[in-house]
């Protein structure tokens, strides 16, 4: 008990502890809201289990189908894009920049993927890398704009990225409709060779939309980790994030780093667009409004402590809440519960100083 207390009180462990405590508190709050509104909190956990593992708890022992592998596949379809937008936001955060524009960068990546995937007719081995890199570059270019404006004219990146979200939405809507074969809501199907989806994965997961995008996610996670932890560039980025003045004094090119950091951040978001178009849908879409992947990314980055592994874990968590929504609705539980939970987790993460100091007091109370 004493050792456990000391473990909790030790500030070194807080980086891991605080998100976990925030998640627990978030779920508790969600449960309390459910109790107050007369819902059964068990339904939430049943829905989560069904969404993530495909196991329908109610059906155990009834002779009905208990396990549906399709659910597991669909769960990862939810997770993949938000892990990538999470990495995008986290990367910018590391440099002290707040990238609210992941949504717009994602849309640009999605457009580039659609355009390349429809117009080019090449073997898969060449076309898939082109499509993936094209999407990343388009997102990166869109992210570079606020980075450049920040570096050159010191325009605040939050303002620019928010505005560029709308610009990207309407620009890509216009461009998508210009692609030959598009109607008012979607483009033609991408060339078969440009798709990340595969018969094999579909059959493995009984016709879910699970696709090879997960490889892109893994590569992106490794790249994120490598740049931040193993390169001089990553070290400089972190230094700029901690204290730009000190970094500049130490001879680092703060402005160049800000622009580059936003571009790389945008590239991660662009990859999310690739995963959506070439993986989940197989065609480009004309959207009436942004879909919130960028904002989910902010939540993922915050909960994940702006690290690669943290973004993966929090992406898995938030993805499970998203995937559980329709199941809960089917049981008559309002889906707003999951929104309350994810929002309160973020609030608790934001309260980390308070949680940290109350944890530290545990030590003094021996």
């Amino acid at each position, binding site marked *: 008990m004493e050792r456990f207390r000391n473990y909790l009180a030790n500030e070194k462990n807080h980086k891991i502890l605080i998100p976990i405590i925030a998640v627990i508190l978030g779920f508790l709050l969600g449960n309390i809201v459910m109790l107050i509104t007369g819902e059964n909190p068990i339904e939430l956990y049943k829905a989560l289990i069904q969404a993530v593992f495909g196991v329908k708890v109610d059906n155990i022992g009834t*002779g*009905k189908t208990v396990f549906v592998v399709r659910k597991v596949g*669909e769960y990862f379809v939810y997770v993949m894009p938000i892990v990538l937008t999470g990495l995008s936001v986290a990367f910018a955060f590391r440099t002290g920049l707040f990238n609210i524009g992941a949504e717009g960068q994602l849309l640009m990546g999605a457009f580039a993927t659609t355009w390349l995937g429809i117009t080019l007719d090449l073997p898969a081995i060449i076309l898939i890398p082109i499509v993936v890199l094209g999407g990343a570059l388009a997102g990166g270019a869109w992210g570079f704009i606020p980075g450049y404006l920040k570096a050159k004219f010191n325009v605040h990146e939050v303002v620019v990225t928010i505005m560029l979200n709308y610009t990207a939405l309407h620009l890509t809507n216009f461009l998508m409709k210009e692609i030959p074969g598009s*109607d*008012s809501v979607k483009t033609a199907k991408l060339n078969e060779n440009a798709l990340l989806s595969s018969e094999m994965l579909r059959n493995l997961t009984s016709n879910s939309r699970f696709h090879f995008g997960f490889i892109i996610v893994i590569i992106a996670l490794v790249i994120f980790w490598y740049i931040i932890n193993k390169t001089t560039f990553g070290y400089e980025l972190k230094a700029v994030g901690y204290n730009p003045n000190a970094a500049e004094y130490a001879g680092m090119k703060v402005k160049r780093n800000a622009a580059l950091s936003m571009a790389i951040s945008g590239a991660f978001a662009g990859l999310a667009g690739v995963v959506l178009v070439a993986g989940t849908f197989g065609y480009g879409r004309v959207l009436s409004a942004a879909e919130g992947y960028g904002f989910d990314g902010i939540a993922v980055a915050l909960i994940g402590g702006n690290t690669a592994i943290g973004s993966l874990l929090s992406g898995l968590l938030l993805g499970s809440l998203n995937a559980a929504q*329709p199941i809960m609705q*089917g049981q008559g539980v309002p889906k707003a519960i999951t929104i309350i939970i994810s929002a309160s987790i973020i609030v608790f993460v934001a309260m980390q100083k308070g949680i940290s100091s109350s944890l530290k007091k545990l030590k003094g109370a021996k």
Partner: protein
Amino acid sequence: MKKRILALLLTGVLVLGLAGCGEKEEETKAADTSTEEETADTSTEEEAADTSTEEETADTSTEEETVDFAVALVTDTGGIDDKSFNQGTWEGVERFGKDTGAEVSYAQSNSDADYIPNLSTFAEEEYDLIIAPGFLFADAISEVANNFPDQQFLIIDMVVGERANVASAVFAEEQGSFLVGVAAGQAAVDAGKDAVGFIGGGDFDLIWKFEAGFEAGVKAVNADITVLSDYVGDFVDAGKGQSIASKMYDEGAYVIYHAAGGAGNGLIKEAKDRRTNGEDVWAIGVDKDQYADGVYDGENSAILTSMMKRVDVAAYIVSEQALNGEFPGGEILAFSLSNGGVGIPEENPNLSSEIIALCADYEEKIKSEELTVPTLPERKQ
């Protein structure tokens, strides 16, 4: 001290949470045991007749436990309270549930990425009929119907062909539009005006049906009336809808009919503003009775009448057919004036009794096929 309070609070929260869970668990357990008892009952009864295995009896008894028919609705991002398509369909499904005791359920999609998983979830739960409203669902329902060939699906306002387990419900919008066209034309004649207007959402064939019917209806009253026509380009931009409406009223349009969804709210707002300022202009609503949306001074409405597209009727009728084992799989069902799928509201406080009688005349002519309403506007012919 602070820490103690915090600790107390935390434990309080924990206890509350756990206690809550505990209670509910007991409840569900109690429910479970009751099912088991019933299972036991049925099994003894059946054992007398036939020595069936326990597993089989368990199966049949659970089927008897749940209501024998279940309908599910998957909405698009609008949700069941969108005052439009989704809500209308849900009203039909809900009424069906109330009338027949069938189980009804719905799932709202957060984005179009949810269409396929939501439809598949209901298919896996073996709902007897799964309904999706709107042409946005065409690809999703086609794919899910292919994956679950034993489930029955209904798509409203869109045709999904070549699937034996999908019924498609479409509407004769031109017929309903014809009636409101007659109303608009006659109202303009009565007021001594010579122009009316039409505002469409997207400029494609489905919306052309509205325009064509309206135009034909107006011309049936008086061929000299000008029908102004313009398109917003989407179904959401109410600002653009209002500016088009403003332009048309300025050009002398007495009544404007819209088929522009949310963008049409701009028309209704413009009509309300102008009536508040004492101008004599009208708007015609679409899809449902929009009379209440047009109320501008607490009691009077700027809505002359509405072209109702009864998605609730479509959902109800097909659910009923499926319940009776007559699911029209693979068929295209046309909902027209004849079966109440389209039409004008029963209450039309802003229409004179002569106009209502005139509309009823034309309704009979269309029903008896004495009159065929075109589906393409003159400019497209």
